[in-house]
């Protein structure tokens, strides 16, 4: 890739990361919050791949595979908890679940 594409790739990753973060902040549904986190993590993965390409270094792709594996583990725990919470409260609205305050 030429340097131009590098900067565009990083720009895309930054935009994706910010989108994910904004989504995490404004969505109240647990599933959408998990989805937003996924977008943030994948943005980091994209940034690693672009950086790896810039330095012609496979480390970036290795990190991406680590991120992929870790995200799967994280989401499986998250969805299991979300399922249990839905059974209990009959809602996935994070404000309704929030009982501990102070």
């Amino acid at each position, binding site marked *: 890739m030429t340097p131009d594409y590098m900067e565009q790739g*990083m720009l895309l*990753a930054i935009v994706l*990361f910010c989108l*994910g*973060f904004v989504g*995490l902040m404004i969505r109240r549904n*647990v599933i959408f*919050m*998990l989805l937003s*986190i996924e977008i*943030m*993590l994948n*943005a*980091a*993965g994209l*940034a*690693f791949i*672009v*950086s*790896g390409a*810039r*330095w012609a*270094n496979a*480390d*970036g792709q*290795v*990190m991406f595979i*680590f*991120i992929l594996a*870790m995200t799967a*583990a*994280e989401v499986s*725990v*998250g969805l299991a*908890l*979300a399922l*249990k*919470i839905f059974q*209990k409260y009959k809602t996935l609205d*994070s404000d309704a*679940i*929030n*009982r*501990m305050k*102070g």
Partner: protein
Amino acid sequence: MSSEDFRSLLPLLILAAASILLLVVIAVRRDHRLVYYLTVAALAAALAASLIPVEYSPRTASPLLVIDGFSLFYSALLNAAGLIVVVLSYTYLRPLREQMEEYYVLILLAVLGSVILAASRHFASFFLGLELLSVSLYTLVGYMVRSRDRSMEAGLKYLILAAAAAAFLLFGMALVFYEAGQLGFSGIGKYLAEAEALSLLIITGFGLIIIGIGFKLALAPFHMWAADVYEGAPAPVSALVATVSKGGVVAVLLRFYSEVDGYQFPVLALLFSIFAAASMLGGNLLALLQDNVKRILGYSSIAHLGYLIVAFLSGGAMAAGAATFYLVAYFITILVAFGVVAHLSSGEQEAEKLEDYRSLFWRRPGTAVVFTAALLSLAGIPLTAGFIGKFYIAAAGAQEGLWVLLFILAASSVIGLYYYLRIIMAMFASAKDPAQRIAPLFSGVGLLLVILTVALVWLGVFPQAMLDMINEWVAG
């Protein structure tokens, strides 16, 4: 890899192999007691293995991991803390209606993740260790799905915030990698030393990494999860979050910062100073408003990590030593405190309200005295480990002239004294009904708490042996 490499990696190998073995054992037969004994044996073996291979260190076992005095000391500390948490968990879990065998596998994995963090010298092992630790902790915090609703809520809150923090950390690593082309700490350090001017991207990258670490350490302003997680998690898991998870992250922070020489950037020092000041004041002030003992301990942990960051920021020769000693003192103290909470909890009802502790001294004098010692150590009263820890932080800070932070440390410690004394006052309040007195039962957990309390006072009176060990292993 040579056989010496394997030998030096023994603590990690034992923990990893034991967690797989436990899974197989559970698949064959569910037996709480058997799994408990195997876990204790594994952690004790890993603890012993951390103390033995000093002769081989320092050894770069792979591009990802380095086994030296520093990582072995932290490995021993983390394994010991994990061992104590497991012993506390056994009696705590017995009366519950959960399937508790997997709980021990998760504790082993959390300790393993933390030990990897302490040994890591590369972004890949940093990330893998952190995630191994975090994913085990999400599950452990939310483990009481059947008996406690708050456990699930705390688990989900912790998962969302910690996963977001991991995303920040990873994106920061990617930005640093984009500029430096290196993932190893020493490679990045070399790049930084040679670079003439640093780009905005790499500074942003460091900032994001620090935010991610701040989340894991529950430094203000990233502390909002701490009190809820401490309250909702089962008491032994709260102890695990306070010790093993923080210890590993502090270790990797110390190593990363010294290898890349982060002290050369005033921007990052300012960032950490703000975190430290906000944590010390915020943690202590918010704790004043609570009447739940687990939440008080949660907010106090925010303040304590703030104190620790002051030691870390001093950056002089004493920084690593002072921070490590403080961590040892804090580990012992908070394990006693959560040990008492777990010890007093019966079945699904946790002893967490301040009311549960009213006139405890007249019902269970031994437990009340042990808890009082832990609270005095948290407050930093002389003759306890907490005091010596704070003293060394002050000495390290004074050497580097961090007067503003030291002033905040002193002032917020005074505020902190108030809420610790509130619990102590409640415990010694005279009982309305003296007939309630329960004859103290001799138990393994009781004995463990007494031993830890003796260690607490011993460190407070004769700290020299521990200081020599830290100087030799960590700073040397």
